[in-house]
């Protein structure tokens, strides 16, 4: 299944997620007008979400992103681990709904 979602982070930037999933997340793209330093570290964030179960609770997913941001010394500006996690969840829900329709 495929799903996508967009969210404007309060006081921050726009985040856009595309996922492919089948019980767990097989593919993810995080896009938007936020800032991430160093920029190449977006791949670490994406990797931390890959292969997670689609029913993983949102706060656990946010914690996973937060952990990788800390260990890789990633600075996020205009976006937060919580915002990424909640947009990923929204993209999964959107994908499931369009699959049911």
């Amino acid at each position: 299944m495929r799903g996508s979602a967009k969210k404007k982070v309060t006081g921050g930037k726009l985040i856009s997620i595309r996922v492919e999933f089948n019980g767990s997340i097989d593919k993810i793209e995080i896009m938007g007008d936020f800032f991430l330093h160093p920029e190449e570290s977006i791949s670490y964030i994406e990797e931390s979400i890959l292969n997670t179960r689609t029913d993983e609770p949102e706060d656990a997913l946010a914690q996973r992103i937060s952990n990788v941001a800390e260990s890789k010394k990633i600075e996020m500006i205009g976006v937060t681990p919580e915002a990424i996690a909640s947009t990923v969840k929204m993209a999964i829900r959107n994908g499931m709904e369009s699959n049911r329709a």
Partner: protein
Amino acid sequence: MEWRVIELESHDAYLNMGIDEALLEGIRDGTSPPTIRFYTWKPSAVSIGRFQSMNDEVNTERCKSLEIDCVRRITGGGAVYHDQKGEITYSVIAPEKMFPEGIRESYREICGWVINGLATIGIDAEFAPINDILVKGKKISGNAQTRRNGVLLQHGTILYDLDIRTMFGVLNISREKISDKMIKSVEERVTRVLNYSNVTQEGLYSALLSGFVRGKDYKIGRLTETEEKRANELSESVYKSKEWNFSR
């Protein structure tokens, strides 16, 4: 430390981005001085942020028919339409240690140079974190920064004139972004120098230059042959490539 200032010049989008990255490398290697450059985009162009999707943000077919270049920047942030006659872009490339450690604080410092420049032509602008400059609550300048290998690069645009029709035609404006700010259109949240001053584009450049060099040791200079060669290489191998521009 003495700054090199490269006066207003025009290049295509790919070379403009190639020059910025060549200077990042040059400063990293200790072969380039801290540099402030001013430029316009010839032909007009759209640049997108490092993490944006070209196809989501830009009407690339429309750009092609209007001969507008499309390029992905090395920096984050949003999509920008760079009208050749409608704006001036600057880049500041220098060792990180010349600036506050925090990225947010260094945005404030460099945006302050833009604000000082606008003040010399009677425009009262203010910094709006994270990376915008506003006049009477409307955006007149967007800015984006990256840091790598101990070097800071910040580039930004100052809107002089605004071809809203073309801008609307080439950018796919996201509904989410507009609705969040409780506004109906881009027109209501963006402004331009010509709304507040009858200065020419050249006059705006002089104003910005004075704001940027205030209190600094500087000399007017140009790219070295080595920098120019590397900028052309990056332009051809990275910034013109589909792999880079359509990577998201």
